[in-house]
């Protein structure tokens, strides 16, 4: 056999494009972040215009930094490192280009639709359905391009970075599609197919794992490539890579319900969310250890090399955030921290510290290579590092203090159940200075990022784009093929699957079934132990073989990430809805109330107001009886919320009169002195879209909401006559407004919040009837 040598050029053009896009969108996303943070302290920054109000811009900030900044950065890193790790040029230049431009188009359309108030009303899943389809398609393109490249690889064995990329691609696809299932009512509006608690669970299964598989696993992969490269040191421990990879992808998926602790979510799901979050601590720290300890023997390089500085700090922030996460998932800690700024601080330790610093490190590493030159200025990069670091610390510390302060104030009640701070606004006033410090911290971070943009611009100017290349010796692949069947009958898989299934039997079953599960768990564990005592080395060989076979590897990853979702979501979405309502059942909306609800969603009210009263003395005293499952059963999408910059609204209906809401929406600070809620003058000018209602109601009927079978005409007439009633009432109270203004619909919605049927009465009745 003759060995032919030839040179292959990497597709680095696409890497350069994604990298520059990430920097540009990063600036935009962070700028919007600083603006929305400042809006909380300085109301005038809402500019009294609908397109710039906090409720619409906050989703723009989150979507921009997650999908545009980190998304583009991830694509740059994945495409650059994968080509080198598998020794192959990206499979398709066309798909790469398509991927890039379609992704930028998606971002641009998000930046237009969100300020217009076009939203699905679910956090980090706000984009409207046509964009959702585009995202799913582009993701599939990305997947094809990636796996195709794996298919033509010359390096048979998959490096740990590639494992993380595989997990990212398949899991994000699964999460994104399930959480975006919806039925359109128009070209720009849809209702999610899940409602109430089901929607809440699916949303946080997605939301939590978007953090896991969009902001964590791809970045871990990037860490595993660039950190040892930059440090020029071997990775600390391969075994740790294996164990922490598999435990991470398996456990992460289960932890979503920790976003819903102490809510109406059924207790068993809350418990699962909490315990899996705790178990996630070690797997996460495995990544941190492998990153930091790879720097052993290279610590002196940190002084000189900004790339390593950013990596070391980024990985440290990762460790900090992944310790804080499990801590916040403890039910009693969540009782204090949920709905407060502590969560905002936690997220930013992860995004600014981990994602942002890893991105900066990677960009400083890549720019000189991709443009074949030297970094323009190392002192400037160092300045960026210190500005960023001080910025993050200021930000995170301010949010810790703010969150704990507001949490303690809101939860504080004396032995007679009397609230220490009955006025919600008092708690807001106390954290205002801290909100100010956040703006300063975020601002410093942004300045640092701008320095980087300048530095990289100047670097690019001094060089010119050069594509990497490598020499290959064309050989017949010598890899040993491992079929999927063979993988699934391997001891490693069988023991793991057995332990998972039997543990579920033991812990979720009852009676003999549970005992059988316990026995089987012990037997499997013993058998596995004995097996590996005898032939432990075989596992290593088998795993090496698995690494040469990307298809079975991908299937195993898919199975690992499927289990958690299936166990948690399937029971909840397949049960009869009536059996999980507890003792209250929501009264379906009238057409006008539904129109008002859609305005509530569209204005992004959920960004500051929850609709979920937790079963604590302080909350029951402040907001009324705690929320039951049945009370949001018809809510598509659910609006339980995640942050209380303003008070909970679950039972605000009937608490004040219409005139109060009228004044409050127009000039909140006059009714609630010191309030930072924006004014909504446009609701008093724009007309209710009655014509959209029939199609909305028919979609809701499809989803199982028991609306009556009205004709289109009846729907519109009903809405108009209810609007007239409210307009008349307002007129009695001295407010003259036309019937058809949006504010009327919003008041109709707000005034029915908390209305429910008390099923205890019905059940009691049913019992007496049965007895007769």
């Amino acid at each position, binding site marked *: 056999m003759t060995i032919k040598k030839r040179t292959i050029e990497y597709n680095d053009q696409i890497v350069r494009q994604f990298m520059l896009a990430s920097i540009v969108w990063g600036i935009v996303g962070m700028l919007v972040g600083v603006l929305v943070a400042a809006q909380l302290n300085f109301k005038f920054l809402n500019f009294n215009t609908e397109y710039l109000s906090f409720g619409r811009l906050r989703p723009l900030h989150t979507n921009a930094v997650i999908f545009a900044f980190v998304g583009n950065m991830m694509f740059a890193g994945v495409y650059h490192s994968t080509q080198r790790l598998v020794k192959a040029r990206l499979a398709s230049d066309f798909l790469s280009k398509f991927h890039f431009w379609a992704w930028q188009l998606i971002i641009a359309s998000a930046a237009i639709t969100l300020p217009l108030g076009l939203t699905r009303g679910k956090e980090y899943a706000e984009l409207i359905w046509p964009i959702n389809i585009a995202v799913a398609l582009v993701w599939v393109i990305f997947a094809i391009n990636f796996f195709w490249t794996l298919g033509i690889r010359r390096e048979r064995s998959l490096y*740990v970075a590639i494992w993380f990329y595989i997990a990212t691609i398949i899991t994000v696809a699964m999460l994104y599609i399930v959480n975006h299932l919806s039925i359109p009512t128009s070209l720009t509006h849809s209702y999610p197919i899940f409602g109430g608690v089901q929607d809440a669970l699916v949303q946080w299964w997605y939301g939590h794992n978007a953090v896991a598989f969009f902001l964590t696993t791809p970045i871990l992969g990037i860490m595993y490539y660039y950190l040892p490269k930059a440090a020029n040191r*071997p990775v600390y421990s391969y075994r740790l890579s294996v164990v922490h990879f598999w435990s991470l992808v398996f456990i992460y998926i289960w932890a979503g319900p920790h976003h819903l602790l102490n809510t109406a979510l059924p207790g068993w799901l809350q418990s699962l969310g909490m315990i899996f979050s705790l178990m996630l601590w070690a797997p996460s720290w495995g990544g941190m250890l492998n990153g930091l300890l790879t720097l052993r023997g290279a610590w002196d390089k940190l002084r000189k090399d900004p790339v390593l500085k950013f990596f070391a700090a980024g990985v440290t922030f990762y460790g900090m955030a992944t310790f804080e996460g499990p801590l916040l998932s403890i039910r009693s800690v969540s009782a204090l921290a949920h709905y407060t700024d502590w969560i905002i601080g936690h997220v930013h330790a992860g995004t600014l510290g981990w994602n942002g610093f890893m991105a900066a490190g990677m960009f400083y590493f890549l720019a000189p290579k991709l443009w074949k030159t030297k970094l323009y200025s190392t002192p400037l990069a160092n300045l960026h590092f210190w500005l960023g670091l001080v910025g993050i610390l200021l930000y995170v510390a301010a949010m810790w203090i703010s969150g704990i302060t507001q949490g303690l104030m809101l939860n504080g009640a004396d032995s007679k159940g009397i609230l220490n701070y009955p006025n919600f606004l008092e708690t807001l006033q106390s954290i205002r200075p801290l909100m100010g410090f956040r703006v300063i911290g975020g601002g410093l971070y942004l300045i640092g990022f701008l320095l980087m943009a300048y530095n990289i611009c100047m670097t690019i100017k001094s060089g010119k784009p050069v594509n990497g290349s490598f020499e290959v010796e064309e050989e017949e692949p010598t890899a040993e093929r491992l079929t999927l069947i063979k993988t699934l009958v391997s001891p490693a898989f069988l023991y793991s699957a057995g332990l998972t299934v039997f543990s579920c039997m033991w812990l979720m079953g009852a009676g003999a079934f549970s005992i059988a599960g316990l026995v089987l768990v012990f037997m499997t564990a013993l058998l596995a132990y004995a097996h590996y005592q005898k032939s432990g080395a075989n596992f290593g060989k088998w795993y090496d073989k698995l690494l040469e076979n990307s298809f079975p590897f991908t299937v195993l990853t898919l199975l690992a990430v499927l289990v958690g979702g299936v166990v948690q979501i399937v029971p909840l979405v397949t049960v009869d809805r009536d059996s999980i309502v507890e003792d209250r059942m929501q009264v379906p909306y009238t057409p006008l109330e539904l129109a008002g609800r859609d305005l509530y969603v569209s204005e992004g009210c959920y960004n500051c107001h929850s609709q979920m009263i937790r079963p604590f003395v302080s909350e029951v005293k402040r907001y009324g009886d705690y929320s039951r499952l049945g009370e949001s059963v018809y809510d598509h999408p659910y609006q339980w919320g995640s942050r209380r910059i303003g008070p909970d609204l679950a039972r605000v209906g009937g*608490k004040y009169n219409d005139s109060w809401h009228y004044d409050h929406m127009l000039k909140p600070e006059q009714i609630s002195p010191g309030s930072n809620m924006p004014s909504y003058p446009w609701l008093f000018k724009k007309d209710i879209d009655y014509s959209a209602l029939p199609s909305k109601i028919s979609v809701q009927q499809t989803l199982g909401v028991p609306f009556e079978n009205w004709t289109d005409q009846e729907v519109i007439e009903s809405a108009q006559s209810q609007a007239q009633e409210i307009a008349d009432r307002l007129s009695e109270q001295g407010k003259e407004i036309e019937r058809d203004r949006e504010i009327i619909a919003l008041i109709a919605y707000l005034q029915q919040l908390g209305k429910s049927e008390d099923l205890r009465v019905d059940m009691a009745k049913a019992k007496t009837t049965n007895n007769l």
Partner: protein
Amino acid sequence: MKEKNISEEPIRHHSYDGIQEFDKNLPRWWLMTLYGTVVFAVAYWIYYQQTGIGLTQGEELELALATIEDAKAEALASADEVTDESLWAMSLNTVIVEAGKQVYTTTCAACHGPNLEGGIGVSLADAEWVHGGNPLDIRKTVYDGSLAKGMPAWGPVLGDERVDEVVAYVLSHHSAVN
């Protein structure tokens, strides 16, 4: 403890684009952390979910509310009863009225006006009372609200003492003759 020379550690021979990996054992404390959280998880699950020994959140709340009721009953037994006369008396006590003013400003002024002149809510300065003008009637209105008119029930939020204070403040603008 002397660090072992790194170059003596076991290393995997495969290299990916120049990256090598040590084949080191898992750090023991790390492994113990993992096992520890797993053991805790199982114990927690059995305690709260499988055996039901741990209280559900609804039960926890009921317990807390019951304790509060007990404390309230105890306090009620030893406290003087609130009467029209006692509220009038409070309205003459400047310390109480000043405290009531504070509550009024943060809670009531938005609707009833900074000087009780009314606004979204009715005037509290005139002699007209929708729900009765006796001190105890006023107290009841503050405490339970009037949902039909959009007056929230402030009793649970403010608590007895603050309600009495704010009633005393309102009464301080009137005289017993009215």
